[in-house]
């Protein structure tokens, strides 16, 4: 197999030639990921009225105890979605809590994970783990299209307490609409990853390849919108010291 060209019109994707002489796309490059440890995490403030809401994330090495959440999404009416786990080989759990409109939905098991890469997606009140539909919330649990018209206020990535825990978030994409199972399967791509099949309605997309300076903050960028993830808990120092530290310690190669 040999590299035959770089296709700029396709976003710089690199194509290879297989044995039959046909061009094929090279494996998706996840690049780096954001590593949360030592109480260093990130969050983005939002104020967006949603048409719908869905997300797909890729994680690795999510190690916690006592159900400290790794991902928290908050809405202005108090509703909160979070994903946590008890240990590195325990089941990931998704919760939807604190809504004024329905009782807490506690601890939906997503599957036991190891230190391998995994993906979680949520759309149309359906929950997918590694590209497979594993749970459908009923209308008695949460109304259909519940997030339409709601205001999303925060996306937090990482562990805010307990310095002995850690996690890495690869890329994560949040949509201002519901996404189809076809889109989830395409991005999941047997855990090899892919660009979004349809970039319409992306609220925020974090590739988490490196830290950057944004005003007085150290962030990693929302590559579609403007909701950059501010890195919180970095050691005190000059902005340049914090930038160098973040890039040296918190953006490991994802694969």
């Amino acid at each position, binding site marked *: 197999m040999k590299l035959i060209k770089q296709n700029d019109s396709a976003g710089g994707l690199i194509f290879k030639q297989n044995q039959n002489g046909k061009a094929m796309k090279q494996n998706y490059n996840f690049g780096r990921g954001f590593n949360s440890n030592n*109480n260093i995490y990130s969050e983005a403030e939002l104020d967006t009225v949603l048409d719908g809401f869905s997300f797909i994330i890729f994680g690795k090495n999510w190690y916690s105890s006592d159900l400290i959440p790794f991902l928290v999404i908050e809405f202005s009416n108090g509703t909160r979605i979070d994903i946590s786990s008890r240990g590195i080989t325990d089941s990931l759990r998704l919760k939807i809590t604190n809504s004024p409109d329905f009782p807490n939905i506690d601890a939906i098991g997503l599957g036991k994970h190891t230190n391998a890469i995994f993906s979680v997606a949520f759309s149309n009140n359906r929950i997918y783990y590694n590209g497979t539909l594993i749970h459908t919330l009923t209308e008695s649990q949460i109304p259909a299209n519940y997030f339409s018209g709601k205001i999303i206020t925060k996306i937090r990535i990482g562990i805010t307490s307990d310095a002995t825990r850690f996690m890495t978030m690869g890329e994560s994409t949040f949509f201002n609409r519901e996404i189809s199972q076809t889109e989830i399967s395409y991005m999941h791509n047997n855990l090899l990853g892919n660009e979004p099949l349809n970039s319409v309605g992306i609220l925020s997309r974090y590739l988490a390849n490196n830290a950057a300076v944004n005003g007085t903050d150290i962030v990693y960028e929302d590559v579609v919108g403007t909701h950059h993830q501010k890195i919180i808990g970095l050691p005190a120092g000059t902005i340049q010291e914090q930038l160098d530290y973040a890039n040296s310690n918190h953006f490991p190669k994802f694969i």
Partner: protein
Amino acid sequence: MVAKIGIIKAVNFNPENYSEVVRDSFTNVIQGGEDYKVLTAFEHYFNDHFDHVFDTQEGYQEWLEKGVNKTITNVKYDWNNEKAYITIADTNFPGPHEFDCTTTWTDQDCIDAINNKFK
């Protein structure tokens, strides 16, 4: 670049003893019922005006755990998963702390579980 964590009792804290770069970055913590100021910063910002400097977060966490307030404030059970969730009065580690559990625990069972976790 190496980061460290320093603590000083709040009653002895004077911001002018520290670099302007970091003096506003101290946070408050209670350990063993006493108020402390805490700074996480790059090592060259540390001087003699600390009670103790930890090289790692783990070391700092061990120090915090030595002063945990173990007073139990709430106990909940999840019988589907056979878990007990115990909340304590400590400001740093309130929980809920999860334990494996097959029957309702006595008060002493809960105390023993927390004592075992925070030795």
